[in-house]
Each structure stands twice: as structure tokens, then as C-alpha cells.
């Protein structure tokens, strides 16, 4: 029998029992829909985390002073005074994987503009800082290399600071006071939002030239951190090793001693987060997969009932010339049509659900083509797998017995 007739016959047979066919398909619909929605959610969450990490800076490594061990007393971030600007110069010269580096230190201070004041983080760094963090300006620009050399009183402010001190006024060109010193605002940064790694408001900050902060505010000549940018994501691992070796050497750390600095690689964090969301996606998808399996068993169940009910029809078809193959194909087609139609509706509802969830969670909408193609493939496979046994049962019927069946 040709394919068109077989298909038409299958649709006709399914249409004869609309409620039953629909309910059977519902199992597949829910299964396929759930798998697609779960994959969408997992991948959406992963992308959201990756985007936040990328937001911190491109191929960035973060070296911070600290992690010092004083006779069992371990001190963390910023506890040592060994990290200095010369280290950064050496890094740029001796570590081939390093592209740029920005030394920095930090303190907190109260900032005043006219009648408003705001307590915030003051970071001292170099113009490379903005480059490494891929941080753009909404107005004005960075301070210059000269400003760093001359320890000029200039400042770049974050969006949160702008909101709190300036509200509607354009900040560039205005003078603010940090502690007792006047600073001219030269640039305003675009909003970056919450940092995923440190869970702090990245926009609540003021950046001034490193030298200005060191000499005029904190009076401390050492660095709290160095931000390093590597050539590529893979290059960041090389940079990590090169920097560690260099700093251990420069700080004269004996092999048995621990580092007096902490090195964090953003690629590592991204990998970790990615790993976590992959596990989550796999978990969700496998739970959804179970419901798909149950849907498949539903198809098998109904097909077995259908074969039993239509025993006489099978006998008749065989008597008028249907081969075993024809009968088997007929029932297999019915099962596959059910799973395919169910799969198509399931894909539609799964995609719909992904859209709804993504827009509520503010994630990028991700419906991967592979998930959809995979779901369609799985739906067909389920139809064939669970339809095979009933179809085989139908094909094996003895036409004489089947015709006599009451």
C-alpha cells in the first residue's frame, strides 16, 4: 500500500476515536513539551550566568593581595603589602599571555556634591581598568595616563553614584569632594548591574587615578588587586600559570610556602557555573524524559486495545489481500502519527512555555534547534518503539481466527 493511503487510513482510524487518541497524545505532548521547556530553562539560566560573568571583563584574571599565613592565622583579601606596581610592570614584560593589566587599590569614603552626600567605594587604578572590564562611558571619558602620573584630582563615577549625587544634573565637569579633597568628574560609566561573583552593586563606585588614591587618600603604596586581561579564554589559563610563577619569584616565596596573593580566573568561574547549570539541565530534562516514556507506554497501551478491538477488521484486510507487512505498517503508522502529532503540539507548547519562563525570569530566550529536532526524533522513535509490539501482534493474527473473532 502506498504511503499516502497508509497515512490517510491512520488518520481516519485515529479520528474514529477522537477522545481516546487525544488523551493518548496528551502523554506525548506533556513529555515533549516538558523536555523542551526544561532544556530551554537550563540553557537560558546558563546563558544568563555566562553573560553576567562576561560582564565582569573579557578573559579576565583577578590577582588580589592576601591569603597570608601568619603562624596559623590566615588572612584574606588585601592583608599583605607585597603586591606593588612594579609587579604589574614585570607582568606585562615577562608574561606573554598577558595583554593588559590594571593595578588597583580600594577604600571607602563619603562623597559630597552640593547638598547631597553618598558613602561609596573608591577605586584607584589606571585607564586600562575600563578596558579590561569592558566598561563604557555614558558621558565624558576616562582619566588619562598623565592624570595617573601627576596624581590629578579627577574622578570617574558609576551609575549608582550619579543617581545619588546628581539626579538630573550632568555630572561631567562638576566638582565633587571625596573626604576633604575636591575632584573634577571627567566621566560617567554605563550601568553594569549586580556582580554575580561578589554580589555587590558594581555601579556603586568611583574610580580615580591610582596614584591619587595612594598618595592623597589612603597613604598606602601597595596594591590590593591587579586586573589582568589575557588574549583569549584559553590564554587565560596560561596567563594564570605565568603570573603565579612570576609573583612567587618576585615575592621570594619558597616552594613549601603558600602564595601571598590570590589568583582567580574568570574562565574558571564561568566553567564552574556552566557545569552547575548543565547538571541542572540534565536533571530537569531527565525528569521530563520520564514523562515522555510514560507517554510512550500510553501509546502502546492504546494500540494494544485497538488491535484487540479491530481483530475482525484485521482479519478482513488480510482476507482481501493485506500482507503481514501491510497490517504491521498500518498499526505502526497509527502509533507514529499519534506520537508525531503529539510531538509537534508538545514542541509548540514547550517553546511557548520557554518564552513565558524566559521573559518572566529576564533570561535570553533560548529554544535550541537541536532540542526541537531531538524532541521530534525522540517522538518518532517512541512511536516506532512502542508501536512495534502492538503492530507485530496485529500482523501475526491468523486471518481465519481473526474473521471469526466476536
Amino acid at each position: 500500500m502506498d504511503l499516502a493511503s497508509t497515512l490517510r487510513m491512520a488518520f481516519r482510524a485515529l479520528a474514529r476515536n477522537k477522545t481516546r487518541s487525544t488523551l493518548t497524545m496528551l502523554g506525548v505532548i506533556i513529555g515533549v513539551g516538558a523536555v523542551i521547556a526544561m532544556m530551554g530553562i537550563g540553557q537560558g539560566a546558563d546563558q544568563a550566568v555566562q553573560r553576567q560573568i562576561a560582564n565582569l571583563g573579557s578573559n579576565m584574571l583577578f590577582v588580589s593581595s592576601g591569603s597570608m599565613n601568619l603562624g596559623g592565622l590566615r588572612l584574606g583579601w588585601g592583608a599583605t603589602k607585597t603586591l606593588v606596581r612594579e609587579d604589574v610592570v614585570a607582568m606585562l614584560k615577562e608574561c606573554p599571555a598577558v595583554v593588559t593589566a590594571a593595578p588597583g587599590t580600594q577604600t571607602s569614603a563619603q562623597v559630597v556634591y552640593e547638598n547631597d552626600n553618598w558613602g561609596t567605594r573608591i577605586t584607584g587604578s589606571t585607564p586600562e581598568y575600563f578596558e579590561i572590564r569592558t566598561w563604557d562611558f555614558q558621558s565624558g571619558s576616562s582619566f588619562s595616563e598623565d592624570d595617573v602620573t601627576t596624581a590629578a584630582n579627577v574622578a570617574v563615577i558609576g551609575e549608582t553614584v550619579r543617581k545619588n549625587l546628581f539626579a538630573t544634573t550632568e555630572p561631567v565637569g562638576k566638582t565633587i569632594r571625596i573626604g576633604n579633597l575636591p575632584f573634577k568628574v571627567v566621566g560617567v560609566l554605563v550601568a553594569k548591574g549586580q556582580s554575580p561573583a561578589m554580589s555587590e552593586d558594581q555601579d556603586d563606585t568611583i574610580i580615580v587615578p591610582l596614584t591619587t588614591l595612594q598618595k592623597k587618600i589612603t597613604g598606602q603604596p601597595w596594591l590590593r588587586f591587579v586586573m589582568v586581561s589575557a588574549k583569549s579564554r584559553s590564554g587565560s589559563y596560561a596567563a594564570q600559570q605565568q603570573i603565579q610563577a612570576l609573583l612567587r619569584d618576585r615575592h621570594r616565596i619558597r616552594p613549601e610556602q603558600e602564595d601571598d596573593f590570590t589568583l582567580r580566573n574568570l574562565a574558571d568561574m564561568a566553567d564552574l557555573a556552566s557545569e552547575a547549570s548543565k547538571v541542572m539541565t540534565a536533571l530537569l530534562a531527565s525528569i521530563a524524559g520520564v514523562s515522555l516514556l510514560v507517554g510512550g507506554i500510553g501509546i502502546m497501551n492504546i494500540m494494544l486495545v485497538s488491535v484487540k478491538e479491530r481483530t475482525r477488521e484485521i482479519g478482513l484486510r488480510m482476507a482481501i489481500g493485506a500482507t503481514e507487512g501491510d497490517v504491521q505498517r498500518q498499526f505502526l503508522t497509527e502509533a507514529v502519527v499519534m506520537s508525531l502529532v503529539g510531538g509537534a503540539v508538545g514542541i509548540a507548547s514547550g517553546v511557548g512555555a520557554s518564552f513565558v519562563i524566559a521573559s518572566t525570569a529576564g533570561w535570553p530566550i533560548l529554544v535550541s534547534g537541536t532540542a526541537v529536532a531531538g524532541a521530534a526524533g525522540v517522538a518518532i522513535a517512541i512511536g516506532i518503539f512502542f508501536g512495534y509490539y502492538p503492530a507485530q501482534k496485529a500482523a501475526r493474527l491468523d486471518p481465519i481466527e481473526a474473521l471469526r473473532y466476536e
Partner: protein
Amino acid sequence: MGAQQANSTVPEVSGIETKPSEIMIQVEDIHKTYDLGETQVHALRGVSVDIRRGEFVAIMGASGSGKSTFMNILGCLDKPSSGRYLLEGADVSKLEKNELARIRNRQIGFVFQGFNLLARTTALENTELPTLYSRVDKAERHRRALEALKMVGLEERTEHFPSQLSGGQQQRVAIARALVNRPSILLADEPTGNLDSRTSVEVMEILQSLNDLGLTIVLVTHEHDIAQFARRSIIFRDGKIRRDEPVTDRARAADVLKTLPLLED
């Protein structure tokens, strides 16, 4: 036998060829044994019979006489345990399942006691069913089904569902379905078993007229009245042919109908 005299008077009609005296079915010493574990049941114990083109044979016998087994073998639904069965000169007793299905499709038309029409399927589509299994294109399928329905006088009812047809009409659809692939023989297994007496005669009238056109018909029945419409009767008993003789005082269904009161219409 009666076959020759019909052939001499009947013109050739599309789909049904008539070649006088040609042997259509040749059965030689057929045995059929069912193995039921400890015991063996001998359903047929050496049956030999020739049926010529254009014959109308009634097969009779009590239940258990072997007539159903014989019909199943004639219809290629079952294979004999031993012996030969030649259908139109070709030995079909040793064929594979798929080859038998092909022969059932092309050379044999079945009519059953229970009609066996597909529910919620129009008369036309029911009639088309065998053509679906025989590589015939759609237009030709349609044309043949219409032609077959016309032969049984149901050209007005092509779009009716079985539930909208009377028992007699349903059996006529079943006959049309049996004719659609232009078979060599028509096997009718108790075709009037579910019908009242007048409708039975109406169905027999159709079978007689088809036979008049040259179609070979083998009919299983246990009613003597029905067997009277055939040209030859074969009586089975205990797995053997007990009697094989021409029907004397053959009844013409058209004449009988005139004597019966109208129940329908």
C-alpha cells in the same frame, strides 16, 4: 454441467472473462490435519474436485463436515497438509504467506456472513479497500469501485455509511468489494446467514446475475433453499465429499422474488 450452457448465452462483460470449459479450480486429494497436542483432528480426508470457469457451486454439510476448512483452503487463507490445489493452473498449495495474500487480493473475492464492512467508512471507500493493496492508482480505484457498486445496484448509495444501509444493502456493498479487483472466483461463506428470507433471495439474485455474466462462484450454505439457486451442489461429510451433483429444479431468484411479499420499501 451447468457452466457451459451459461457461457454460451452470456456476452463478455468488462472485468469478467469467459473461456468455456476451462478448469478454474483443481483440487487433488487434499488432506488437512490439525495437530491439537495429543490428538489429531482430520478435517479433510482426501478431497478431489474440479470447478470450471463460470460454475456456481453450493457447498453444503453439517458443521464439522470439513466444508469451512475446504473454503479456507480454496480462499488461500489456509494451506492443505497434503495434496495439490491448482488455481487457474498454478499450484498455490506451497506458496508463502505474502504470495497467498497477493492471490487473495487479485484472484479471489470474499463475501462473509457478517458483511465485515468498516464502520464510519462510506460504501465507496469500503468497496475500494482491496484496491489499496494492489498498486492501483487513485483514479482507477475510484472508477473500479463505482463500477462494482453499479453491478450490485448501489450506485445511488456510494456515500452512505454502513450504519445508514439495510442488511441486504450492506451485503451488496460487501459483494461489490469482492468484485472490485475483478477476481477469478467469488467465495461466499454463508452470505445470507444474517439476512431475512426476502433479502436473502435478493442477494442470491445478484449472485445469480453475476454468475450469468460468467463469474465463477463458490457458495457455502447450510440452507437447502439457498443451495437451490446454484448450478451444482457438493455435500461434505466427515471430511470427504459425499455427493457432487448438478442442481435439479434450479430456482431463479428473480422468479422467487415475485412470489414473496414486499417487506421493505
